[in-house]
C-alpha cells in the first residue's frame, strides 16, 4: 500500500527524503548550472518514478505522494539543499494540477500517467510578444474547426519548448469578449506537427533555454480543452496560489551567497573591509529574508491560505540574489568580465554565469514592478 507520508513526524519525513536524495541522486547532476534536456536526467527521473516520488503534491489516487503543505515544504527544502534538479517538471507542477482540478475523467486517465512517466514532456505557453507583464493581453487565437481547435499565433519565453512533446497554453477563444481577461481558454496541444515551429532564443549569456513557438494552423482535438471554454484565465490564476511562496524561496540567494563566500575567501577579497561590509549586508539580507520566509511557511504549515503579501518575498530575494552576484563580479576583480569558471583553490566558480542567472528573477513570474503594484493595492490598500 501507499505510504501515508503525512502521518510521519516532520523530522522522520525529512530524514527519509534526505536519505533518498543523498543515496540516489547522481553526483554529476548536483546543482546543475543549466536547465537539462530530458535525456540528461532521464536516469534520475526513472528512479524517482519507481519510488513514486515524481509528483509530491498530487493526491495519492493519481500517483502522487499526497503531501500536505508542511511535508511539501520539507520535500522542496531537501531537494534544494542537496541541489537536486527539479527535472522537466512543468507537467507535474502545472499541467497535472490543472487536469486534476478542472479536467474530465478521460483527461485524467489519459494524461496523468504520461506526465508521471515523462512519456509526455510539457512546456508552458503563456507569454506572448505583446503579453508580458500584461499577460491577459494575449492574442494567440484558437478556433473550432470540426473536431479540432485550429491555433494561430505566437508564444514566447517558452522554457525548453525545443525539448517538449506537448504545450499547455492560454489561447483566445472569444475575441469579442468585453474584457480581455475573458474569452481565454486553456488548451493542450502536441508539439510534433507541421503547424508548430520552435525557435530558440539566445540570451545575453549565450544560453538557449527559452524559445519562441509559432502556431500556423496548428491543430489539437477539441477534447484537449481543459475546463470550460473561455474560462481559462481564472483557472490559470487559481494554479498560481501555492507557487507564490516558492518563487520567493531563499534557496537561490543562499546558494549564491555560499558561492560568493568561498570565491571571495579564495580570492582574498575578505582582506578588504569595504568588501566585508557589503558581504555582511548581503548575508544579513539573506538571513533576515529567510526569517520572513519561515513566517509565511509557518502559515502554510498551519493550513492557512497565503495572502497577496507573500509577494514581498519574491521582490526582496530576487533583488538580493542580484546584489550577491554583483558582489561576485566585484570579488573577481580584473577577471570580472571573463566567461566560464574562475579557479579558486581546487574548484572553479563561474561568476558571470551566476550574474546572468540572477537577472531574469526580477522580470519573470510577474516583474517586481508588477509585484509592487499588487502589494500596493491588495496589501497596503492604496487607491488607484
Amino acid at each position, binding site marked *: 500500500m501507499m505510504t501515508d507520508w503525512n502521518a510521519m513526524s516532520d523530522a522522520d519525513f525529512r530524514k527519509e527524503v534526505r536519505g533518498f536524495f543523498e543515496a540516489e541522486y547522481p553526483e554529476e547532476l548536483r546543482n546543475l548550472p543549466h536547465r537539462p534536456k530530458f535525456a540528461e536526467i532521464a536516469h534520475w527521473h526513472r528512479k524517482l518514478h519507481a519510488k513514486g516520488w515524481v509528483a509530491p503534491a498530487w493526491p495519492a489516487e493519481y500517483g502522487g505522494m499526497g503531501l500536505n503543505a508542511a511535508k511539501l515544504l520539507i520535500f522542496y527544502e531537501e531537494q534544494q539543499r542537496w541541489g537536486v534538479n527539479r527535472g522537466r517538471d512543468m507537467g507535474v507542477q502545472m499541467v497535472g494540477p490543472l487536469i486534476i482540478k478542472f479536467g474530465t475523467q478521460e483527461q485524467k486517465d489519459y494524461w496523468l500517467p504520461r506526465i508521471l512517466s515523462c512519456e509526455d514532456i510539457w512546456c508552458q505557453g503563456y507569454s506572448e510578444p505583446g503579453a508580458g507583464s500584461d499577460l491577459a493581453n494575449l492574442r494567440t487565437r484558437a478556433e473550432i474547426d470540426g473536431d479540432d481547435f485550429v491555433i494561430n499565433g505566437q508564444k514566447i519565453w517558452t522554457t525548453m519548448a525545443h525539448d517538449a512533446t506537448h504545450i499547455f497554453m492560454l489561447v483566445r477563444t472569444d475575441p469579442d469578449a468585453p474584457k480581455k481577461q475573458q474569452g481565454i481558454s486553456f488548451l493542450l496541444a502536441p508539439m510534433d506537427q507541421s503547424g508548430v515551429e520552435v525557435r530558440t532564443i539566445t540570451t545575453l549569456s549565450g544560453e538557449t533555454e527559452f524559445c519562441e513557438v509559432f502556431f500556423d494552423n496548428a491543430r489539437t482535438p477539441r477534447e484537449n480543452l481543459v475546463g470550460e471554454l473561455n474560462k481559462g484565465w481564472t483557472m490559470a490564476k487559481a494554479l498560481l496560489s501555492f507557487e507564490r511562496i516558492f518563487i520567493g524561496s531563499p534557496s537561490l540567494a543562499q546558494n549564491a551567497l555560499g558561492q560568493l563566500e568561498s570565491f571571495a575567501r579564495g580570492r582574498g577579497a575578505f582582506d578588504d573591509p569595504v568588501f566585508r561590509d557589503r558581504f555582511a549586508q548581503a548575508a544579513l539580507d539573506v538571513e533576515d529574508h529567510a526569517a520572513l520566509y519561515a513566517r509565511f511557511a509557518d502559515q502554510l504549515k498551519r493550513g492557512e491560505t497565503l495572502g497577496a503579501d507573500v509577494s514581498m518575498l519574491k521582490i526582496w530575494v530576487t533583488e538580493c540574489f542580484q546584489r550577491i552576484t554583483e558582489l561576485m563580479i566585484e570579488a573577481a576583480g580584473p577577471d570580472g568580465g571573463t566567461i566560464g569558471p574562475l579557479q579558486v583553490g581546487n574548484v572553479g566558480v563561474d561568476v558571470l554565469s551566476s550574474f546572468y542567472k540572477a537577472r531574469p528573477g526580477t522580470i519573470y513570474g510577474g516583474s517586481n*514592478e508588477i509585484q509592487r503594484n499588487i502589494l500596493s493595492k491588495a496589501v*497596503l490598500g492604496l*487607491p488607484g
Partner: protein
Amino acid sequence: MTQTELPTSDQEDLRLLRESARTLFERAGGSGRSRKLRDSGGGWDADMIHELAEAGVFGVTVPEENGGLGMGLAAGGVIAEEVGRVIAPEPVVVTVGLSLGLLRRLCPDHAKMEQLVGGETVLAVAWQERGPNGGPAEASCRYADGKLTGGKAWVVGASSAQGFLVVAQGDAGPVLVLAQAGADGLSVDARRQADGSAMGELSFSGTPAEQLASGDTVQDALADAVSDTTALAAAELVGLSARAFEITLEYIKTREQFDKPIGSFQVIQHRAVDLNVMCEVAQSGVREALGLMDGEADPKVRARLASRAKARAVTAAKKITRDAIQLHGAVGYTDEFDIGLYLNRALVLSAWLGDDAYHRRLWFMAREAEGAA
C-alpha cells in the same frame, strides 16, 4: 529552516503580552503622552513606571523566584516593540537589558533587583568612556577604598535616575558598584538628545559607591547584558518603524495633491511597498534573532545575533523614518505631525550602542571567529 518556531503555547503567551503592553500604552495616551513629556523637558512619568512594573514589564526576563515573569528575550522584545510603537521615553530597555541584565547575572539577591522589578527605583548604567578624540575609549575609571574616580560617558537617563550602576576598575579587576544620584563628588553633564531625552557624562572625584560584584564575571555579565540590550533596542526600533510606516501609509491615503491622494501615484506606491517590505523583513529578522538568543548560551554567538538584530533594525528605521518625512512633504518637517518624533527617536536609538555599519562589522568578525573555532 524555521529555527524560531516556538511551541504554540509560548506564541500565545507572547501574543497576550503584546496585547497587554499595547493596551497599557494606548490607554495612557500613546505617542501623544510621549510628546507631552518631551515638551515638558524630557524625562519620564513616574506613574507610568509604576504601571509598567505592575504589568511585569521590567521583570520580564527576571526569573520568577526573583519576582519576574521568567520569560525570555523574545518576550522582552515584544515589550520593546510596543515601547517603540508609542516612542515611550521610559527606560524599559535600559532597565530590562542593562540594569537588571547586570544585577540578575551578578547579584540576583540584591535588594535593588526587587526595587527595579517593582518600579520603585530606576538606575542608569555607566559602562562606557570617552576618549580624547570624542569617541569611545578604554576604561580608566577606578574604584578603590569604596570610592570612584574618573568619568563615564553615554549614560542613558542620567538626569532622572536615582542611582548609577558603574562598571569600574577595582584593585583586583573589574567591579560593579552602585553610586547614588547626588552623591559626593559626582557631577552629571547631561546633553539633550534629538528625542528630548538626556544623555549624561558622569565625572567622579572620590564618589562613594557600594561594590556589588567583582572579577571577570563582571566583564562577562556586562558583555552579555550589552548583547541583550542591543537586541532589545533593535526590537524597539522595529516597533518604532512599524508605527512610523503605518502613520505614513495613513497620511498618503488622505493627503491630496493634483486632486487625488498622493498614495495613488505609482512612485509613492512603490516607495510605500519598499518600506513595508523593509518593515516586515526587519520584524522577522529581529524576532528570529531574539528567539535564537533565548536558546543560545555562548555569549559570542549571542553577541553575533544581537549585532544581526541591531544592524537590520537601524538600517530599516533610518530608511523608513527618513522616507516617511519625504512622503509627508513639508508637514513632515514640522513638529506638529508625529512622524518627526519617530525620526528623532530613531536617530537616538540608532546611535545608541552602535549603528548598522558598526554592527555589521561586529557581526562579520563574530562569524569569522566562529568559523575559525
